[in-house]
């Protein structure tokens, strides 16, 4: 069982590794989006500190959506998605492994960049830790939930705008949790509650989302 899971994981990783360009695009998008906030709003340090959690989170959210666009589309085009759905492995498990691999490639780099961005926005060490932690728990949730939308819209002509529309309502609670964790910690509020809620959300989406994605993909391939 472990061996099989590992095999699936390394298989997805090799595939994703062949698309380095995508990772670069997503990271570039994230960095530029974050940089636009000070340019567009103000460089006032106090104000920057206030908007920092929201700016970083919103940029991470849209980067995730951007990366999700490629999660299934190429596999659908070349026919490998069908083959995956016929593998003698529970599809939800296969998808869970795949989503984790996708997060490692496109989500984890955002988390690792977060401390640098925190410095740009003049956050203190503690605040940076909280920001990074909130993204570390939050971005996998974004990927897990987002995959449902990606699975429902894969192969459609104008899927980009549509997937954003489908995902925004799903993402609101996570966005609220993530940003308020950071801004609460700035005001010296205890953020254990935020993190336990986010941890719970992560667990629930880890368990439920692969099944939802599997159902959505079956519908899409029908």
């Amino acid at each position: 069982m472990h061996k099989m899971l590992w095999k699936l994981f390394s298989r997805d990783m090799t595939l994703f590794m062949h698309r380095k360009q995508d990772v670069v695009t997503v990271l570039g998008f994230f960095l530029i989006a974050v940089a636009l906030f000070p340019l567009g709003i103000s460089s006032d340090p106090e104000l920057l500190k206030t908007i920092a959690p929201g700016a970083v989170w919103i940029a991470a959210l849209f980067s995730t959506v951007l990366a999700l666009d490629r999660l299934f589309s190429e596999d659908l085009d070349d026919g490998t998605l069908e083959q995956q759905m016929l593998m003698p492995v529970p599809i939800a498990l296969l998808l869970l492994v795949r989503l984790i691999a996708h997060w490692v490639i496109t989500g984890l780099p955002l988390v690792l960049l977060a401390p640098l961005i925190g410095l740009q926005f003049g956050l203190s060490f503690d605040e940076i830790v909280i920001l990074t932690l909130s993204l570390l728990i939050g971005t996998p949730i974004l990927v897990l939930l987002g995959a449902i939308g990606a699975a429902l819209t894969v192969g459609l002509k104008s899927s980009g705008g549509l997937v954003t529309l489908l995902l925004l309502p799903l993402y609101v609670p996570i966005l609220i949790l993530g940003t308020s964790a950071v801004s609460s910690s700035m005001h010296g509020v205890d953020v254990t509650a935020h993190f336990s809620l986010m941890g719970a959300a992560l667990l629930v989406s880890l368990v439920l989302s692969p099944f939802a994605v599997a159902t959505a993909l079956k519908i899409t391939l029908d």
Partner: protein
Amino acid sequence: MLEIEGLAVEREERLLFSGLSVKLSAGEGLHIVGKNGAGKTTLLRALCGLTLPATGVIKWNDQDVTEFREAFCSDLLYLGHKNANKTELNCRENLRLALGIQTISDEEVGDALHEAGLGMLSHLPTRFLSQGQQRRLSLARLLLSKATLWVLDEPYVALDYKAIEWLDSILERHLKNKGLLVLTSHQTLTMSSTIRVLNLGEQHA
């Protein structure tokens, strides 16, 4: 043994076929024919569980395939219209990928590619291959697969006469080894083994 009972598939408000019942036992082949739009591809996809039928049951070894999906899929090999090759990977990597979690040695992969006439090209990314070569690459997985039920959608497309002979020999060997085969093809088959024919156009009145 494969059993299809009362299968009906609907597309865009219209029944493609209905009341389709077929039994296929070990060593038997089924050639599905019918005019364009009769639902040949849809039938194959429904058989694999990719398309949801309106009614009907598909049984593999007396078990409903929707309930015992994993058992069915481990015996099933499906080749669709698309070759299911990743253009950025080379032949070896693609073949390994296509065989999923099955463990195979490097020699076996090399032998299969050699037999498919891709021995020299095995380290090239597949985007450099021609249509026929790509097709042969995806057919090479037939050589390594342990599946007993092969479901092939137009496998002869893009093959030259030599490759057609090669595919015929593979399919015949599979049937001799008590394998099951379901395929669609526009051409009349050149295989020497006899194979049942199912005409989809005549199925629904």
